[in-house]
């Protein structure tokens, strides 16, 4: 018996959130939008489009919003969560593909990858591409996980990893993506990827400007040496 909930972290995504939620609902999935203290009408629009909305009283960042969403899903009896961005760059029509792969491979997490053969994305700047490659290599060497797109926020996560994430999940930039994969890999959770075609963001603002990205990158790269900012129980 599986129950799937789609969790969408959203900060000031009023321009796109309605469309994303509608697509998810049309696919027949329950949809939870975590409004990360937006200053626009994100929450109202998401609610009208048919999502259950959780409003955080203060801005916690993507990881903070996600943990709240995971907690809510787990508390409501879900054992699988699909995480989708609120800005419309993830193809919500491909949620089924992620779930199928999760079942077929008996995996704990499936990442939708822009860079796997058959995937596609809006053109990326060279430094960005290079940074993603470095993260991917680090992940393979240090975490034993082969994921071509470690910063992808389009993922399906299933119990027992979901329940573990609902308790322990980093909230800093790159923590929710790269570091979460690294720790899950080290702790023996099985992670796979499927190619997806991502679009350019449909509106709203990127979650990190350049200086923040550089800082996050430095921190992410020291993580394998300094230890991670969070931990998970080992996979049984």
């Amino acid at each position, binding site marked *: 018996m599986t129950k799937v909930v789609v969790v969408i972290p959203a900060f000031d995504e009023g321009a796109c959130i309605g469309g994303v939620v509608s697509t998810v609902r049309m696919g027949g999935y329950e949809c939870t939008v975590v409004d990360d203290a937006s200053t626009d009408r994100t929450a109202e629009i998401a609610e009208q489009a048919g999502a*259950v909305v*959780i409003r*955080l*009283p*203060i801005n*916690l960042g993507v990881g*903070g919003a996600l943990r*709240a969403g995971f*907690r*809510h899903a787990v508390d409501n009896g879900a054992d699988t969560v699909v995480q989708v961005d609120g800005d419309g760059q993830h193809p919500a029509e491909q949620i089924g593909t992620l779930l199928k792969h999760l079942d077929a491979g008996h995996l704990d997490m499936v990442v939708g990858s822009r860079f796997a053969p058959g995937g596609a994305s809006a053109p990326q700047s060279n430094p960005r591409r290079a940074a993603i490659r470095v993260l991917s290599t680090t992940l393979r060497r240090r975490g034993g996980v082969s994921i071509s797109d470690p910063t992808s926020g389009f993922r399906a996560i299933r119990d027992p990893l979901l329940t573990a994430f609902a308790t322990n999940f980093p909230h800093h930039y790159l923590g929710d993506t790269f570091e979460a994969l690294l720790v899950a890999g080290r702790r023996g959770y099985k992670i796979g990827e499927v190619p997806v075609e991502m679009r350019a963001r449909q509106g709203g603002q990127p979650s990190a400007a350049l200086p923040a990205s550089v800082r996050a990158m430095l921190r992410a790269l020291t993580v394998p040496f300094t230890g991670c900012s969070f931990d998970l129980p080992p996979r049984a």
Partner: protein
Amino acid sequence: MLVILGLTRRRLLTTRYTLGWLGVGALVALAAMTMPFVGQLGKVANITPTAVLLMISSLLLLAISIQLSISVSLLQERLRTTAEAHALLARRVSDLERPA
């Protein structure tokens, strides 16, 4: 020291930090009173007594700022958990208040 006691009485400082700061004050005062001994320490390392005193004070200040960073990190995590719990409860309350 009077400033610290004043701040505590006006409840701007909790007892925990009052004790810490009073301890720091006491240590620095002790070092100042035992200047001859501090001077001996300095001779061993071939630096002036004043430099020894400065070194001790800056090490103490360093220790305090590290301790404060630890406190702030802990508080951030607690704030995050509290905000999360608040949001989930608010959701449940508005579900309950919705007319059936």
